[in-house]
């Protein structure tokens, strides 16, 4: 009888803990296509990652808005097209999520604006002048959210490991400095 009471009390305590201190679920780098609000999915000292959703508004206005935010943080706005089914895209996300030093160093000073191709479409899907034929692909933006013309995709490096990705992306992001 006492054992039952103890078990019951323990159960109630656990329920109470969960109610009083709910676990925070941090958003991952993977997209939530149905969302109508844009997501800030990572904010480090030197790197910000956001994901824009189609239902949240006009892409060009949103890019202009995000570019202003990037400028306020002293970061370079860059659009990245990705997809949930794309293993190379996941490899980069995983490296960032696990705080891989090589990747974080290469991506430092950037403001990555993620767009999922399943949500925004490919070239034929009317994604405002973003022309590409493979993902992941990165487009540098200016302070007004317009493309600068500098583009790079995964074809620029070989196998998808941080040791290959980091030097190429470091050169792309910081090479002009």
């Amino acid at each position: 009888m006492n054992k039952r009471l103890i078990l019951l009390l323990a159960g109630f305590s656990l329920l109470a803990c969960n109610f009083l201190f709910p676990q925070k679920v941090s958003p991952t780098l993977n997209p939530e296509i149905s969302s109508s609000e844009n997501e800030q999915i990572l904010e480090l000292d030197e790197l910000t990652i956001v994901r824009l959703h189609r239902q949240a508004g006009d892409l060009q206005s949103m890019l202009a808005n995000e570019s202003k935010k990037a400028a306020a943080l002293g970061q370079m706005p860059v659009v990245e097209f990705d997809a949930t089914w794309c293993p190379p895209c996941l490899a980069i996300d995983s490296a960032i999520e696990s705080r891989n030093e090589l990747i974080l160093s290469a991506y430092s000073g950037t403001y990555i604006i993620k767009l999922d191709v399943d949500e925004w479409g490919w070239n034929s899907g009317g994604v405002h002048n973003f022309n590409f034929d493979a993902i992941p692909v990165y487009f540098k933006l200016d302070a007004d959210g317009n493309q600068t013309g500098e583009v790079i995709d995964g074809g620029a490096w070989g196998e998808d490991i941080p040791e290959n990705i980091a030097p190429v992306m470091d050169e792309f992001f910081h090479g002009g400095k």
Partner: protein
Amino acid sequence: MKLHYLFILSFLCVLAACGKSSTAVQRVSLSLASFTENYVDVSIRLEGTDSEGYFLSAIFTPPDGYHLYSKDIPLNGVEGLGRPTLLELTEYSQIRALGVLTESVKTMEPNFEPKELLVYPSGAVTLSLPVELPAGNTWLDDTVKVTFMACSASTCKPPVTGKIVNIRVPGVDVYK
């Protein structure tokens, strides 16, 4: 002289027998459809003979340096990643499958996680399905379904899922 006639007669008999057997075993090798979508060339063919059986096959050729994924991974990929390479009959298909889909090359584990996301080596893959042709001696309209997605070590092309392809197939008596 008599022997000479007998020899010629035997020779003619052999020739006649050969001619008969060559018409009986007529090998079919037909291109049923071909197209390129999302950078992958796809060619659908019908091969075989009446005695050995017929095979519906699809040759998937991705761009240089790109690979396709195993026919055996789930339709929605492994943990959402990748898409299988498939050749399927449709619900209304008049061709009947007589066995399982086979692949021309062996799959291998990828260099990254999840290891269950089996891939084919870079290059073309042929999938074949043993089939029974519809009855009759006429050609019929039919459809098949293909799924595929090409990736390299560092980039992916968009997937094609359950694309319906129109084909025209011969009845089983057309080649008898």
